[in-house]
């Protein structure tokens, strides 16, 4: 299995995640799409680390995984907070900042 196979797989996964981010209306659904995109990036990092025999890529993957988990926790805390105030999690209804 060559490097191109892994990269193509990650590209397809990234596109699917991007599709989800564009089309979902629920904020939690958008977050799930972002998860897929970050996951695709991790596959790329690990594949390059393996094919270059350099663990630096895997260390980057460790960092992205950790930061993603913190991001999801904070993002969902925000979603729950917004839900308490506005009683909706649909992104289109969250236009408080509109002038």
């Amino acid at each position, binding site marked *: 299995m060559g*490097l191109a196979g892994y990269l193509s797989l990650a590209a397809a996964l*990234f596109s*699917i995640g991007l599709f989800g981010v564009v089309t979902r209306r629920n904020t939690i*659904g958008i977050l799930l799409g972002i*998860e897929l995109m970050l*996951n695709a990036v991790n596959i790329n990092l690990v594949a390059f*680390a393996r094919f270059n025999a350099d663990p630096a890529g895997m260390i980057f993957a*460790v960092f992205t*995984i950790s930061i993603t988990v913190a991001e999801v926790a904070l993002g969902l805390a925000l979603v729950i907070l917004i839900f308490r105030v506005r009683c909706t999690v649909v992104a289109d209804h969250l236009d408080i900042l509109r002038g």
Partner: protein
Amino acid sequence: MSLEPIAVAALGAVLLVSALGVVLTKNLFHSVLYLALSLTATAGIFLTLAAEFLAAIQLLLYAGGVVTIVVFAIVVTERLVGVRITQTSRYLSTGVVVAGAVLVAVMSAIGSVRLPDRAPAPPVDVTRAIGQALLTRYVLPFELLGVLFLAALLGALYFARPDE
């Protein structure tokens, strides 16, 4: 002849199908279950890349932590709203165009360069190499990660505090 290409193909198929499930199912809860499946398949992909440590982190943090948090968020928001969240999608054609354009661009970039067909021999102990690099060369970002987690913890506590 090893089983590795077959394993990668099977895991990749599971990964892509479950990812499509994440973005296409109506029920948000089913989306999260598909996400758990796709994250687990990613851990399998990491195993085929001889990254056992990352596969373990992937299962612990992503498939364990993230999925649990998202399920809690769905349960909380559904209980408060009182009706099932069957989510709808919009801009389907825009989504197809944008995602397809990105896919075509990345695939043509992949096709235009020469990439190695076979990996070098796997290093003896990847986990040891990762650990040593984390505590020597990358020790500063590693410590900063701790600061980030502290900030995230405090921020989440601040957001989730009960109303006075």
